[in-house]
């Protein structure tokens, strides 16, 4: 079975094709350019280049958040529309989990970082156990500084993954000292082939109900909730 993997959650645009266990095609860019004009052309190109017809796609895997709201919606809308109209299953994989997959051979904890402005980050905590990527602490919107102190309690080396970890390098290094380690650029761009593999054995979700995990309310909703003391 051929899997089409789509990641548009950050500046990284990733499209991958997995055939059974094998990654057979990957397209990655890490530039600030509009995903909307590029994702379908890339899918079209990569399928053709790999000699695969769209009718052979048996599953679609999408990095479904957190991340850029608009970016997530582009990948999710393309993924769910294709899955629904081609009548194939769709599965979502955490965009942070996908980033954490870069730390496969790191002997410690892995914290993927997406900047969320004003000293905040989207992050979670992951760890490889017997070659399997395990969740240690859930994906959340957090203060970078508080997250640093939280990680300190583990008293273990932590690998920060993602270009945005550079924005908070000083914060994490000041708190975790030598236990704070940072992935090189080559490992900071999430691999769409890895996304396909992460979603390979997951059960398909209902395409109509498939949506991004923004992990945050919109500003208008948060303000309304505060003003109306909705719990």
């Amino acid at each position, binding site marked *: 079975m051929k899997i089409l993997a789509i990641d548009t959650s950050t500046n990284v645009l990733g499209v991958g094709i997995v055939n059974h266990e094998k990654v057979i095609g990957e397209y990655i860019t890490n530039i600030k350019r509009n995903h*909307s004009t590029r994702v*379908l052309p890339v899918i079209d190109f990569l399928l053709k280049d790999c000699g695969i017809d*769209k009718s052979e796609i048996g599953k679609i895997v999408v990095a479904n958040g957190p991340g850029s709201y608009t970016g997530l919606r582009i990948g*999710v*809308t393309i993924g*769910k*529309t294709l899955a629904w109209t081609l009548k194939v299953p769709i599965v979502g994989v955490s965009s942070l989990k996908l980033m954490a997959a870069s730390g496969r051979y790191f002997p410690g904890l892995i914290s993927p970082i997406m900047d969320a402005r004003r000293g905040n980050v989207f992050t979670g905590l992951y760890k490889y156990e017997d070659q399997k990527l395990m969740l240690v602490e859930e994906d959340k919107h957090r203060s970078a500084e508080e997250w640093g102190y939280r990680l300190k309690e583990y008293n273990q080396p932590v690998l920060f993954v993602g270009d945005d970890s550079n924005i908070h390098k000083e914060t994490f290094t000041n708190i975790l000292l030598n236990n704070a380690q940072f992935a090189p650029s080559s490992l900071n761009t999430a691999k769409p082939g890895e996304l396909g593999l992460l979603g390979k054995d997951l059960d398909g979700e209902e395409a109509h*109900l498939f949506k991004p995990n923004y992990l945050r309310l919109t500003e208008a909703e948060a303000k309304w909730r505060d003003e109306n003391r909705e719990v």
Partner: protein
Amino acid sequence: MNKQYILGIETSCDETAAAVIKNGTEIVSNVVASQIETHKRFGGVVPEIASRHHVEQITIVIEEAMKKAGLDFSQLTGVAVTAGPGLVGALLIGVEAAKSIAFAHSLPLIPVHHIAGHIYANRLITEMQFPLLSLVVSGGHTELIYMEEHGHFEVIGETRDDAAGEAYDKVARVLNCPYPGGPHIDRMASEGEATIDFPRAWLEEGSYDFSFSGLKSAVINTVHNAQQRGETIVPENLAASFQESVVEVLVEKTIRAAKEYGVKQILLAGGVAANNGLRTELQKAVENLEGIELVIPPLKLCTDNAAMIAAAGSVFYEKGIRADYTLNANPGLDLESFSIK
């Protein structure tokens, strides 16, 4: 002639819509999922919330349109989608979905300008006769468009500040009407009398442009001044006075343009085309003109819908207009750049 079926998709603001149109004129299915209830508590459309809703609704709405049409994707002639103008994040959902369907089923993709869609809603009622003039009035637009033939658009007048619908919403807010306020003002106006003399923005002589911000400010000032003096204003009379000013300018300029351009038809389009005051006055004015037919779509086709997008898409398809998979949402898309001529 082979049957032509166009699937239309529209997500430019707060309605997620899909429809199938046969041969450009016949509605086979027309599905609209409105978000009005969601945005009500915020007093207006919140773009990020609109985008989030579109993602959740898009495939459900398209599926319903296809099911009601009883068609398979392989029977479609093409997929038409609103490429702009509108809210960029909202437009994107329709554009990505349309591209995905076109790609999955190797169908032609047809980009449609939202205003062209509003105009072509009229072709679902009666065949267009050229040359024609269309008055497009909505929450985001107030334009007079001249068309010599299918696919040709010349904007001969447009608002220089607020759209007419925008002025309605703001006046409605001052009068504490719930969102969306336009229909409330229209109803109140019918119950009141135009007792206040609000300004009419005619602009330079011969201009077909509009301006509603001065009128809006005049209404707001009248209400505030009355409040400060402890006077009461009859809201129905205020609504009637405001509406009279808007309608008089819209109708007068439309009739003048229709005469100057020698058109055979006047088409009313856009959400404010649902306004009773405007419909009535325009009808009265056109009755005095010989040889000009007035076409006003039913309410359902005045507000945002995808039937109108498919109807316009049908014409653009025949004219050979296509987009590839690089098609993007364009919040400031220019109508004349779409024009065939």
